[in-house]
């Protein structure tokens, strides 16, 4: 009994202390926020002298550049500063933070709270839209654009002369992509397009002086490389499944002038447009008959952090695991950096690109392009603040320079959507480090086009089913025609269901 009494006493004491601690916590939480330590500058100081875009700006006081989420303030504890919230996917948070530091230096009346989202960005944002979470500026992918606008998740920009001037300086593809029904919805984060890359040393050693211009030439070169033992599977394609995988099918189809969906979302394959079927038949033969690519290995979702086959070590210096691969233009920079690629040759550009080979010599060489932009969610509480941040991040800084766009190109080779900065001497110099023919790059850029049907809400379901059918064709579980017919039927069913 005495023991029991002690235990009861113990519990009671525990509960009392717990309640007391909780009450104190509650009181603390309800207490007014402590006053700011220092008064802020009442007016914005003049813009600091333009720094070199590759230099990190001096961090704002008390800012922790790598902390997540981070609040940046030019004047620590500024009482009048408006806090803006930026959300983006988790790409290079420290560099984003440096860009924001500069924004706050130039605009001390703002703080910026930056939250990089490490998980599934789409699901995360959709959940926040649903919960009406206040956000000021967000990253937007082109595949989200139409449905987010139609669903009322985004609000249009204020169409000022400044915004119109920025749009006038963009490449048409980028300017068009960010508009919907005559309204402008963002300013560009970066843009890029796919290129057909090749290892120059490998094709030269196989006896070819120029890269392939058609798929027949590609087959011939790949077979020769294989026969000479330079590479077992000279051609790599991303054949994995996923909402953002298997871009190669778009690349090969576009390069030969084909399309998959028309503007109404109706599938044009396998009969109305014969290119997709011809491409898939070529792929099946490449994997199973000519054995120039390892389709099964290429179906595996790439392991994060692993070198791409173009960058893995081949049988001798300058050789990669494969000789040909299609990928983003910005990958060329890493392809040719010896510290990031085992097939790179120091002091030489070994991985080059060519206009994407098509089914015949008259192919248009079109490629998929994409746009990533800064948009303003409809839940943004402070439109002026959002506009100020978006104009800095996606346009010019206070010194009149395309600061962040240029910086992304110089540091990470992320493409610029604006025309004028491409003639900048620093940009030209940087480009020459990994691209030998900048005129060819601009030509390829002009051939970029958006993937078909991104505006339809059923796009992802259709696209992943298409990928599964393509895989089944490559494994010879279905004929290419049957696979594409099944995919086309699926598209029609999804479209019909959407209208239900």
């Amino acid at each position, binding site marked *: *009994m005495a023991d*029991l009494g002690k235990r009861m006493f113990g519990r009671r004491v525990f509960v009392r202390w717990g309640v007391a601690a909780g009450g104190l916590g509650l009181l603390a939480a309800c207490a007014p926020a402590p006053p700011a330590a220092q008064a802020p500058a009442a007016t914005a100081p003049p813009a600091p002298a333009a720094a070199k875009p590759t230099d990190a700006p001096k961090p704002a006081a008390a800012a922790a550049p790598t902390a997540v989420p981070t609040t940046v303030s030019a004047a620590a504890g500024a009482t009048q500063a408006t806090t803006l919230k930026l959300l983006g996917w988790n790409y290079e948070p420290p560099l984003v933070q440096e860009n924001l530091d500069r924004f706050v230096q130039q605009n001390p009346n703002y703080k910026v709270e930056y939250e990089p989202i490490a998980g*599934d960005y*789409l*699901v995360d944002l*959709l*959940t926040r*839209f*649903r919960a009406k979470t206040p956000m000021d500026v967000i990253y937007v992918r082109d595949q989200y654009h139409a*449905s987010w606008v139609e*669903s*009322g998740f985004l609000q249009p920009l204020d169409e000022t002369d400044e915004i119109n001037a920025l749009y006038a300086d963009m490449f048409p593809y980028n300017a068009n992509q960010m508009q919907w029904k005559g309204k402008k919805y963002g300013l560009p984060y970066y843009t890029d397009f796919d290129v057909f890359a090749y290892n120059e040393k490998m094709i030269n050693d196989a006896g070819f002086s120029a890269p392939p211009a058609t798929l027949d030439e590609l087959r011939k070169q790949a077979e020769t490389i294989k026969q000479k033992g330079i590479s*077992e599977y000279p051609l790599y394609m991303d054949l*994995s*499944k*996923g*909402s953002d995988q298997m871009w190669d099918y778009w690349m090969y189809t576009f390069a030969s002038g084909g399309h998959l969906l028309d503007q109404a979302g109706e599938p044009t394959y396998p009969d109305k447009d014969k290119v997709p079927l011809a491409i898939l038949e070529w792929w099946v033969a490449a994997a199973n008959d000519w054995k120039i690519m*390892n389709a*099964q*290995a290429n*179906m*595996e*979702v790439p*392991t994060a952090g692993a070198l791409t*086959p173009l960058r*893995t070590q081949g049988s001798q210096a300058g050789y990669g*695991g494969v000789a040909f691969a299609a990928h983003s233009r910005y990958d060329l920079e890493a392809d040719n950096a010896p510290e990031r690629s085992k097939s790179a040759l120091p002091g030489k550009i070994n991985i080059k690109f060519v206009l994407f080979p098509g089914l015949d010599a008259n192919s248009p060489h079109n490629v998929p392009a994409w746009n990533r932009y800064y948009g303003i969610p409809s839940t943004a509480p402070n439109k002026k603040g959002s506009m100020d941040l978006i104009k800095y991040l996606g346009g010019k800084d206070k010194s009149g320079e395309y600061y962040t766009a240029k910086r992304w190109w110089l540091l990470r080779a992320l493409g610029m959507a604006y025309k004028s900065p491409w003639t900048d001497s620093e940009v030209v110099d940087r480009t020459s480090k990994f691209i030998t023919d900048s005129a060819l790059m601009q030509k390829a850029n002009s051939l970029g086009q958006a993937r078909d049907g991104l505006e339809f*809400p059923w796009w*992802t*379901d259709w696209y*992943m089913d298409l990928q*599964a*059918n393509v*895989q*089944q064709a490559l*494994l010879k*579980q279905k004929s290419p025609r049957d696979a594409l017919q099944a995919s086309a039927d699926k598209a029609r069913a999804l479209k019909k269901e959407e209208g239900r």
Partner: protein
Amino acid sequence: MAAAETLAGARSVRGARFELSERAFAYLLNLPAILTILLLVAYPIVDAFWLSLHRYNLRRPEAYAFVGLQNYVDVFTSDQFVPSLGVTLFFTFWSTIGVLVLALGMALVANEHIPQRAILRALILLPWAMSGVVTALMWKWIFNPNSGALNGLLYSLGLISNYRSWLMSPDTSYLAIVTANVWNTLPFSALVLLAGLQAIPSELYDAAKVDRASLWARFRHVTLPWLSQPILIVLIVQALGGIRIFDIIYLLTGGGPGYQTTTLGFAAYVTSFISTDIGRGNAWSYTVALLTLVIAIFYMKLLYGRGDVRS
């Protein structure tokens, strides 16, 4: 009993302002736990079911509407349903068989009086300490088609002439995911069976030896009957885990090649989080839950119907 009376008396004296029955007092004490369970478990379950009766795609939230059982009709008539069900049952069956056979073997070895038995038992437990995600990533490297350990081993032994893809080959993708799952879930089952083995009285084996029973006869007539309950537990745990499998599929094969390794759970994930169709995704999830429930009831009847275990 005396303590309980004392407690009740104390409560009535101290709490003179309100009298509580024993039952009400018990509920009061359990209230925090009940509220927590209602909030964190019951509410999401009911809400998920409610959502499964609606058309609700996050890409088109304005099209939200009550559709009754239409999502379930769509799931059952989907061209993916039967193949996914087949893959799920196939995966569950072979995972369960694989785990049972190997766990039994491991438990029998670990139950023997061999040197360093404690170390052996600790090693058996090791894979259990790893999460499904870590296990899947480890096996992804082992199965890597370009630099994987399995390819390296088989190539160096001269058993294969070229590195190959184990995860995306129609012949080996099932085997690969079953292997990864068996490796990860084996230790728990081995532990359960080992506990069962240690509960068998040694006199039974002594008596069988006196009767000149062979090793097989001792296993068949002594060990197995005594292990029937632990085996049933292993079967239940493995079968239910197999039906709900997601992480290994997600990380190793992504449901491919084609739809070859797409299970019901993975289809639910794709519908909910890739297609962002929350209504239909919940219908897929409830279908998995229904299947799990049916199998659980079947096993429970087996387990409790024998009379050895009382509910």
